């Protein structure tokens, strides 16, 4: 299957690979997917004092489209409030990366990863 240039770019030069200390107060961690399905994404956000996401990191086990989707959302969530980050839709991700129909689940997983990271942060802070 031929990948779009944007998928190839994110795959070859992934943005924000890595992680933050999970127990840090300002960090929210989302881990979604399952090895059985061939995709696992870990997305972490670092939230600043004003409730704005200052930084993000990811690690992904999965195909090139899954890696690209998670790489892309680490860029997109930066500078957004938690509520704004939750507005990112899988369709936006799929459109930006020109994902073919069989790879739409990668963008859904990336959207889920944002939700999971935000949920984790909010649970820590009881909001």
């Amino acid at each position, binding site marked *: *299957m031929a*990948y779009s240039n944007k998928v190839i770019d994110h*795959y070859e030069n*992934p943005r924000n*690979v890595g*992680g933050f200390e999970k127990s840090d107060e300002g960090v929210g961690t989302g*881990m*979604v*997917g*399952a*090895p*059985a*399905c*061939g*995709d*696992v*994404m*870990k997305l972490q956000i670092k939230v600043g004092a004003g409730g704005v996401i200052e930084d993000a990191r990811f*690690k*992904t*086990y*999965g*195909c*090139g489209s*899954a*890696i690209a989707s998670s790489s892309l959302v680490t860029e997109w969530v930066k500078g957004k409030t938690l509520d704004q980050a939750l507005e990112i839709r899988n369709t936006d991700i799929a459109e930006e990366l020109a994902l073919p*129909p*069989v790879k739409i*689940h990668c963008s*859904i*997983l990336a959207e*889920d990863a944002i939700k999971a990271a935000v949920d984790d942060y909010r649970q820590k802070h009881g909001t």
Partner: protein
Amino acid sequence: MINRPIYFDYSATTPVDPRVAEAMIPWLTERYGNPASRSHAIGWEAEEAVENARVQVADLVNADPREIIWTSGATESNNLAIKGAANFYAERGKHIVTVKTEHKAVLDTCRELERQGFEVTYLDVQDNGLIDTEVFIAALRPDTILASVMMVNNEIGVIQDIARLGEICRERKIIFHVDAAQATGKVEIDLQTLKVDLMSFSAHKTYGPKGIGALYIRRKPRVRIEAQMHGGGHERGFRSGTLAPHQIVGMGEAFRIAKAEMATENERVRMLRDRLWDGVSDLEEVYLNGDLVHRVPHNLNVSFNYVEGESLIMGVKELAVSSGSACTSASLEPSYVLRALGRNDELAHSSIRFTLGRFTTEEHIDFAVGLIKERVAKLRDMSPLWEMAQQGIDLNTVQWSAH
């Protein structure tokens, strides 16, 4: 196209050997006759070429040329053999035995026969990919009419004990079909000793052209099948349709070369395959899929744990390899062959098949080893599963959110 990848996918198809291509060309241009034209010399010469190729194919497997029928390829041969025998012997019984790791051309043909009222048993294999003969025997019933087992598996390259399975079937008067598409030129096939009734062949896995294959149909003891393609009564009524002399000449020449060069070629390819395995098995958490001993020298199927197969294939785009994982299709299912070996999901999703052949060189292998090591390391740095494994977390204890 510049920078074409190095070819490591010989089990998908092989290049046509230049000697084969050369042999084919006159049969497209000057010698265009229809071998079924009995009334003139243009037809006679085409018929002679077809019969000469039939001898070449029969010679590779030690059969009588009269036992070889031309088809369009191994898929058609498998369909003709399985449906043809099942239909012919249906009054004797309705039970068929095959194996879960067979090619789709066998499995889907069996599924179709189930829709027609046959009952099919799909046998499990052992974790090395080989059939346990006791399990095979236990599956046979008084109403079993047909068993179909591939000689060499296309994904993991393991060689089944066809000699033993043939004995078992013959004792019970069960028709035994063998898909040998991946076996020709790689393992010795002697149909004078093997108790095989029907055997499928393909040209393009053995340096011949695509679009041509053959089916062996035993004469002694005689095996009967019902034709699936009706028309002009070509191939003694087993398979109608105008023969393609250029394709057939190509298959004949390819099988002639296979017979002449098999022994030396296999030794050379085995050395290269072992060099590849030695190289990549330096990495941690690398697993060989399928038995290493009962295996063709051309195949190496490896799981790089914690790295997803499709992303690794993308990472080694300088190599033309294939994934055991079926991720590139619409399905999220990992390879059914690896699942049948009892591989867990992570390992089944992490496999790559390297298949080597006539034009693979030591330089290709060394380049591949270096590239794979570098890219696996890069992808593991990016893998949350690798991170968890390094932290000593047992992935089986994690509650995953399946999607």
